[in-house]
């Protein structure tokens, strides 16, 4: 942390070299080579302070939250609620009660689909998504539509991989109840104009959910100015532990919803034939939560705040621009998504004309370069693009241009291995 602070004073732009020292895993080797971790859209690595807080929780103040009157319970509860406050500050939520801890972005979206969707969406109502959604923001709505007889409509994408908003006025129709859009695609990298989809949704009397799993970790996001009704994201994609997700919601919506899970911690008063729900946010947090994960998410948020999300974004624009140029210069690579780094984040999907993504990932792993191959939980999008799978390199604050050079070298080597120059 100290290196960061010093660094911040002298130079506002990210220095990945000093950041790297805070991430012990980046020192490891894979197949005899220094790890080059380019699978950050799947999950990011963790700084030492996050790892330390996990250990500190278990070795110093492990206890259940909101239940005990003893010192440990009090410390754990305070740390847990402090994390909630930090999340609220991080995304500009007006009130701490609007932050609900879940298991991940997936569970956050499911919570809305069950606790709000099944009450408010019925036969003949419309749910609007986009063609680039992750399964997490697709399957819950497909299931809901199947169950209720609601209809699904998709905002199309253009050849660049950006949303085609020409017909959005008709797509988000008067019978639309929900518009759920990803703010940044995990495949195309595209940053979507969610303010616009939210505005039209509201004009039609619909609710707007933003899948921010890829945006909150990589760019400044302010839920209030965005005016989203619900926002979902995951801690593990932004330096935090796995198993922690966040659902932000507007207070009047959350207050009006019935719980999603029932049990301990979410009640006010229980009798044998009666139960009355606790106030927000506890109404939605039944049972013992992932306390260790939540308290260790606090230092991750501090870490990102110290760097500054605008700087994170700037760093990734630079890396993305550099990578797009270098990949293009190979001649054998087809890149998906916008070619202008200002329009996209640092998740870059591509295919090689001659080597299948699976084989690329396997060969790159031999050089210590970790990329992802597959459909990245976006099968309908891949079908639309006419391909079964893509290779994907995705960045974060600790990645460097030298690592991109290693990626490019490894791609060349993989082609040579398969007999292509």
């Amino acid at each position, binding site marked *: 942390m100290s290196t960061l602070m010093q660094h911040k004073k002298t130079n506002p732009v990210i220095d990945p070299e000093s950041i790297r020292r805070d991430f012990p895993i980046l020192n490891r080797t894979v197949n005899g080579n220094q790890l080059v971790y380019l699978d950050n859209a799947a999950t990011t690595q963790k700084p030492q302070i996050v790892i330390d807080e996990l250990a500190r929780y278990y070795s110093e103040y492990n206890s259940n939250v909101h239940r005990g009157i003893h010192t440990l319970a009090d410390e754990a509860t305070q740390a847990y609620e402090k994390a909630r406050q930090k999340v609220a500050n991080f995304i500009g939520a007006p009130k701490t009660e609007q932050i609900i801890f879940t298991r991940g972005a997936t569970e956050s979206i499911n919570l809305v689909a069950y606790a709000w969707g099944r009450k408010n969406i019925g036969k003949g109502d419309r749910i609007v998504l986009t063609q680039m959604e992750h399964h997490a923001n697709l399957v819950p709505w497909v299931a809901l539509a199947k169950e209720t007889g609601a209809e699904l409509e998709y905002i199309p994408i253009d050849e660049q991989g950006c949303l085609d908003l020409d017909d959005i006025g008709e797509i988000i129709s008067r019978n639309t109840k929900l518009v759920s859009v990803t703010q940044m695609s995990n495949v195309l990298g595209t940053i979507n104009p969610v303010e616009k989809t939210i505005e039209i949704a509201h004009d039609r009397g619909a609710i707007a959910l933003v899948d921010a799993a890829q945006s909150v970790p990589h760019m400044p996001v302010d839920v209030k100015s965005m005016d989203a009704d619900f926002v979902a994201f995951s801690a593990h994609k932004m330096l935090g532990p796995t198993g922690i997700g966040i659902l932000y919601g507007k207070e009047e919506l959350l207050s009006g919803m019935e719980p999603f899970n029932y049990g301990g911690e979410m009640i006010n008063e229980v009798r044998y034939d009666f139960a009355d729900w606790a106030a927000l946010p506890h109404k939605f947090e039944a049972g013992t939560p992932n306390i260790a994960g939540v308290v260790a998410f606090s230092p991750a948020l501090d870490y990102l705040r110290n760097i500054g999300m605008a700087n994170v974004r700037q760093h990734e624009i630079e890396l993305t621009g550099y990578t797009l140029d270098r990949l293009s210069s190979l001649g054998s690579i087809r890149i998906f998504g916008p070619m202008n780094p200002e329009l996209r984040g640092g998740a870059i999907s591509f295919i090689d004309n001659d080597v299948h993504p699976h084989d690329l990932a396997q060969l790159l792993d031999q050089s210590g370069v970790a990329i992802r191959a597959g459909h990245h939980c976006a099968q309908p999008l891949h079908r639309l693009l006419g391909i*079964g799978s893509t290779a994907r390199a995705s960045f974060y604050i600790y990645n460097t241009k030298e690592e991109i050079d290693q990626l490019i070298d490894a791609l060349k080597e993989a082609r040579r*291995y398969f007999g292509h120059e």
Partner: protein
Amino acid sequence: MSDALDTLYREVILDHYKNPRGKKKLDHADVKNEGKNPVCGDEIEVEVEFDGDTVKDLSVSCAGCAISVASGSMLYEVIKGKSFDEVRKIAKVVKAMLKGEEYDADGIDLGDLDVLEGVRQFPVRIKCALLSWVTLVDAIEKADTNESSKLSTTE
């Protein structure tokens, strides 16, 4: 690159990948079956023409990685002309070989298939190698039970 990698991507495998045998369309397919590896998106179509209970001819069209394409191509070479019983037996041997289990290949001509042993060291790739086999066996079961189309997966 490493030795382990060279056992995965044997020359024979790369050769089958670059020139997959059996990638054609049959004029008289008795049964067709599609297979999918849901994890990586690889897709395969197998067509089979029967002569009684033997595979008179077949086609294997695979859109996938080197391992799944090569495995399908080797399958084509080995399976053509075999009886249903032999097909089931060979598929069982291939499965066991990939999973590192005991198998008895007595009296079975495995052709190039033994190179698939190298896949065992790369557990995530086993499904790639299995896809064509699962799809073929399902195709034959389908013909045997007169079932209509069914999607095969490696799951």
